């Protein structure tokens, strides 16, 4: 088995960062996120490889919060359009957790299948290597196993396993092999035993729920479940699988660019039409659509739920809404 000693970790980061933009889990001020390794400042910032989940999911590696799509100029009747690709270099995301990586796989389903491949997404995805870190000790808010994620067998380009003083290094794809080459001088071949997986503390009732939800669309329980929701949208922005986007314009006189940016189904404007009709006018309707999208609609369309059990929304929701409790109530309701 290939082993990367923790003493050689920063050397490995330096080497990888020479070949690509390297994003690592980092605490910067009040927030933890996957951030570029060259920006790491010892003493001020903190590496967070042990964190099960950093605050911000790494979905922006492939779906940035804002992304330019094309430039234009418009002068009277004359108009010109020029496509823009902001991506400038290959990327390596180091230490993504298996749940978050399943989130990337959900995004792949959306952006790369069903008739159209989204060029902006595809370019980023093709140029990104994911090195996933297996989880042997689930946290108090973790429930990835209930959502069909194997916490120790992510299908990323490389999987690493924390052995205490080093990481077992397991390349799984040609891109992973290529990345392994970049630090081959730092890897040792050794025998090692992988740790035991500790049990999950949260039990979550997802199995069979998608099927049951087909008959619950008009159920009064949605009134009760959605009552505390403020429609603030923080759950959608902090969710590794929420992918909805808006397309907006920025113009400076006659020139400008059109860009896309993360959007949220929690907002009234999301489905409000120019004529004034809104199919999801009520907060309850938007709330219901979000949870049904996660638990039923995505399952029907792509064969997996659009929740990967990371637990971030449980932590950030100002109203204390928990998708775990919602699943439980939906499972029990008659």
């Amino acid at each position, binding site marked *: 088995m290939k082993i990367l000693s923790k003493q050689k970790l920063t050397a490995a980061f330096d080497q990888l960062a020479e070949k690509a933009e390297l994003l690592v889990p980092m605490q910067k001020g009040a927030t933890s996120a996957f951030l570029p390794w060259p920006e790491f400042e010892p003493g001020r910032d903190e590496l967070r490889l042990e964190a099960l989940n950093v605050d911000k999911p790494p979905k922006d590696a492939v779906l940035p919060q804002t992304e330019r799509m094309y430039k234009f100029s418009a002068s009277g009747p004359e108009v010109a359009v020029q496509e823009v690709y902001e991506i400038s270099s290959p990327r390596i995301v180091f230490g993504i957790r298996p749940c978050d990586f399943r989130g990337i796989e959900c995004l792949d389903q959306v952006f790369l299948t069903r008739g159209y491949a989204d060029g902006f997404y595809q370019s980023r995805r093709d140029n990104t290597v994911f090195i996933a870190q297996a989880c042997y000790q689930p946290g108090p808010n973790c429930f990835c196993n209930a959502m069909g994620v194997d916490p120790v067998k992510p299908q990323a380009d490389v999987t690493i396993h924390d052995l205490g003083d080093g990481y077992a290094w397991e390349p799984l794809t040609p891109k992973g092999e290529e990345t392994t080459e970049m630090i081959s001088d730092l890897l040792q071949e050794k025998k090692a035993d992988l740790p035991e997986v500790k049990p999950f503390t949260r039990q979550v009732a997802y199995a069979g729920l998608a099927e049951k939800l087909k008959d619950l669309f008009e159920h009064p329980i949605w009134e009760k479940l959605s009552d505390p929701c403020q429609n603030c949208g923080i759950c959608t922005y902090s969710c590794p699988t929420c992918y909805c986007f808006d397309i907006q314009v920025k113009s400076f006189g006659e020139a400008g660019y059109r860009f896309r940016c993360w959007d949220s189904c929690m907002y009234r404007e999301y489905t409000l039409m120019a004529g004034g009709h809104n199919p999801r006018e009520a907060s309850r309707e938007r709330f219901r659509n979000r949870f049904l999208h996660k638990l*039923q609609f995505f399952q029907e369309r792509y064969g997996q739920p659009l929740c990967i059990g990371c637990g971030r929304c449980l932590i950030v929701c100002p109203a204390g809404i928990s998708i775990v409790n919602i699943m439980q109530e939906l499972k029990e309701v008659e």
Partner: protein
Amino acid sequence: MAEAKCTCSNPLVPGLVEVVNIIDETPDVKTFYVRKPEGGVPFNVRPGQLAMVSVLPTGEGMFSVSWQEENDHLEFAIRRVGLMTDELHTVEIGQKLGVRGPYGNGFPVEECKGQDMLFIAGGIGLAPLRSFIKYCFKHREDYGKITILYGCRSYADLCFKDEIFETWPQMKDTEVYITIDREEAGWEGHVGFVPAYLEEINPSPKGRVAVICGPPIMIKLGLKSLEKMGYTDQQVISTLEMRMKCGIGKCGRCNVGSEFICLDGPVFTLEQLKKLPPEW
């Protein structure tokens, strides 16, 4: 640092077209004819499909293509209802616009061959149906009797007046029924709402397909009328409208249940609609 490769072109970037004709249909509807600056249509469109029209820099909006005239131009009948359409209504012939598409499934023109056709439209809802109606006339021998029922708030709001009053009623085996919501001076035609008029005309469901489009409330009541008249869920087709941004089933907002209207629709049979949540 190695160069990242751009690995595919993007369906979200529009091509350019030029406005070559503008027809004032009603006080708030204009039909725009567009073609590529070098001539020809930007892409081929099947009846009922959609395209995203951009007025730069103001905005983009999704519209049904109300007709493709051979390889000459596309026609969009567009109502002025908001920021982008306000701007669009000020453009003049020669204006360049962005357009991308075609999107969506379109009407089942092949499956309807050999059938009598009943088209039911309200307001700007005739714009999408017009592509199917004109397709039927172009392939007249492939379809049976054609019945068109069209209603608007007032006479002034009726779109495509030349076609609905002159051209279409003269076509072979074709009946055109027009209604407006309220009495007005000079109008001697029918007065009343579309669903009630539909039940009054009562075209038999035997060997006939009904295609309905209009404001959501008209569609919902019209579907009830059709059911009452004996139409089965497979015989009724509608085309839906939702807010859209991408047009390719990715940006999220136009879902009804697990279906995306821009990609899986906008055309559905009533049988398909009944399997979806009533959220449109």
